[in-house]
Each structure stands twice: as C-alpha cells, then as structure tokens.
C-alpha cells in the first residue's frame, strides 16, 4: 500500500506533467515511459495486462544505481492510470501536434477535391 507521501509524489508528477514541466520519453517498450529528475532519480510508468487481458498500471521511482525506491499501482491510486496517459501524450507530443493542427486551421477556401460533377468551367482550355 502506498503511503500518504507516495500518493503526494504521484500527484506531484501528474501536476508537473500537466504543466509541461516534466519531460517524459519513450522507451523500446510501447507500454513504458521514463522521466529523469535531479540528475540522479528517474520514474518509469508502465502498463501491463493480467491473465484476462485487463490492463493494470504502475509507477516506479528508481535511484542512480537503478535501485527501486518505491512503486505505486493503479489499483491503489487511480492517478497512476491518469499519469500513464499523460506520460504517453507528453512523450509523443500529442498536445503539441493537436495545437499545431488547430492553430493553423484548415484551408477551407480551397477544397481538396471537387465533389460535384465536372462542368465546362472546370476545364481550363
């Protein structure tokens, strides 16, 4: 069971990820993301699936010797599940991509393809 302090730490990670202060990175495992802190700690967030293919999540804090300092599971703290999704979005720059697409808007004036039948005006000669 996580302690009060452990849960505070998960909340800290969620808040800082939302604020864009924490940079998560991808790993070779698509269900694992990593972020480094203070030059000597790192946090990993993982998603696994049980025998019945139901997903479960866990967050691990490690020191510079790769020693596991603490672990919090999603079924003990629902914020861990939220953190996984935030970390995934952060590492893949999902929000930046959405912002870029939405800020530029779409070229509504120029239809990409004509849907109506071809008329004489469409032919330039």
């Amino acid at each position, binding site marked *: 069971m996580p302690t009060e302090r452990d849960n505070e730490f998960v909340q800290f990670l969620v808040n800082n990820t939302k604020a864009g202060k924490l940079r998560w*990175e*991808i*790993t*070779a*495992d*698509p269900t*694992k993301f*990593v*972020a*480094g*802190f*203070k*030059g*000597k*700690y*790192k946090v*990993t967030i993982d998603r696994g699936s049980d025998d019945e293919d139901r997903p479960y999540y866990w967050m691990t804090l490690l020191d*510079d*010797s*790769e020693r596991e300092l603490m672990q919090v599971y999603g079924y003990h703290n629902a914020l861990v599940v939220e953190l996984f999704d935030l970390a995934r979005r952060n590492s893949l720059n999902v929000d930046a991509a959405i912002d870029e697409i939405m800020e530029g808007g779409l070229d509504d004036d120029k239809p990409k393809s004509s849907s109506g039948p071809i008329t004489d005006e469409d032919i330039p000669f």
Partner: protein
Amino acid sequence: MADLNNYLPAIDIAGAVASVVGLSFTIYVLIVAKGVKKQVEEAKALARKRNLVEELNDASQKLEQIGNFLQQRQWVGVQIRTAEVLTICREAMARWSDHLSEERRNGVSTAMTQVQTIATQLAEIGQRELTPRENKGLAAAHLKASGHISDALGEARRQEERDGSNDAN
C-alpha cells in the same frame, strides 16, 4: 670575555638575518609546494574528465554498433552490446556524474532505461519476426538513447577543452 661581548651584537644580527632568510625560504617552499599541489590536482581532475569522455565515447560507439545489429537483426549482438553500454554508463555515472550537468545526467539515466528496454523487448520477442511497430519502437528508443549519450559526450568534451585551454593560459 670582553672580546666575546664585542661580537655578541654581530652574532645576534647574523642570527636574526639567518632567521629571516630561513623563514623566507620556508614561505617560498610552502608557496611552491602549494602551487605544485594545485597543478597535480588540476592534472588529476583533467585525467578524470578525459576518462569520462573516453567512457562516454565508448558507450556512443557501442550504441552505434547496436544500431547496426538492429538493422541486421543480429539479436545476440544487440544483447551483448546493450549489457556493455549499461555497465559503462553505470560506472561512468557512479564515478564522474558530478562532471555533467543535471540535464545531461538525466539524459544518461533515461538512455540507460531506453537501452535496457531494447534488451527486454528483444528477449520477449524471442525468435519470432518483429512487427513493423516493434521494429519502429526499437529504432526510436535506440535513436533517443544515442542522442542522450552524444549530448553528454559533447558536454564532457566541451568541459575538457575548457579546462585544457585554462591550463594553457
């Protein structure tokens, strides 16, 4: 006896001069010794940084080889090199982490996890063929890890060059 009394002030003066000369010499020797000690310490620090550069360079080269092994689907080669990179990074961080900025240390630590997951993913995949998604994941993690190690190497080299030019001045 009277003759000796005549010589006493001269002996006193000579003694005082000798003391002053002796003290000056001692101070001079101390200053020189301190300078030598400082130079030795600087040389040691430089040697330590050279080693950090060498270690990170070694890790960087091995990561390059991992890239080649991944392309050639030589999983045994990948497994061997990933273990080596992890050992190099762990040792380098244990010995010289104070010579890198916090950002670069975070980078090396992140790269270690990325390299580790390359090995664990390959172990999970076993002998079967990689899916395009798995392939892409391995390549992306490899590129990210290489980038972090290159950044750290760059910073260590810059630091070494700065120290080198300071010594020349």
